[in-house]
């Protein structure tokens, strides 16, 4: 499956805007991604190994946190995973 890498993380993914991984679940896809690009890990996960709160994951067009199985959701080779850091702010 394809994992789309957002601009701020491409430096840590070999400069790539997309990475192909083989995985059976969302969690396995992230593990494969960080195995291939270890520098990504600290940007995606806290020291306790949890996904950082401002990191949004979209499996195709679905927010992973709202899927029944969350990161245990099964994926296929045709699926895409988008990593999207939050955008917010104000005066």
């Amino acid at each position, binding site marked *: 499956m394809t994992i789309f890498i957002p601009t701020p993380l491409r430096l840590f993914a070999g400069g790539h805007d997309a990475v192909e991984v083989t995985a059976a679940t969302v969690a396995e896809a992230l593990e494969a991604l960080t195995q291939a690009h270890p520098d990504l890990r600290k*940007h995606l996960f806290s020291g306790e190994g949890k996904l950082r709160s401002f990191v949004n994951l*979209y499996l195709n067009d679905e927010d992973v946190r709202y899927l029944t199985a969350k990161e245990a959701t099964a994926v296929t080779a045709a699926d895409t995973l*988008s990593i999207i850091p*939050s*955008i*917010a*702010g*104000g*005066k």
Partner: protein
Amino acid sequence: MGILHLTRAVYEAVRAHGEETYPHECCGALLGKSTADGWQVEAAVRAGNTRTDSAHNRYQIAPIELVKIERDARRQGLGIAGFYHSHPDHPAQWSATDLAEAHWLGCSYVITSVAQGKAMATNSFELTGATEEEKRFEQDTIDISDECIAPQRG
């Protein structure tokens, strides 16, 4: 100080958006190409502000909207260079909230102050730092074609 290159059309579109949504904050994405000389922004894409509970002083872009903006950007051979939003009746300077909620390291955050419905200063700040814990804003110079816009007060 880095340089953010904007076309005049993008610069004016960002400011016009802030005027249209006044007294609420507007927001959107900036698409372009990364070069050795900084980001060359070619398009501004308006986004919805999901903070309808406090739009006069807060903005948030729905992640699903960013998924689609990035998808469209890839089709055009562009990347997300940064984001823009407005500060109604408030300086074009980043706030503590802006910094706390900024996570796109290496991207620029463009802020326009809109006073009584009129766009005043537009400034740009690059989010720098090696990690989320070390992040900070550093002011950019905005370059519009051949005209350099130095950081503006207001």
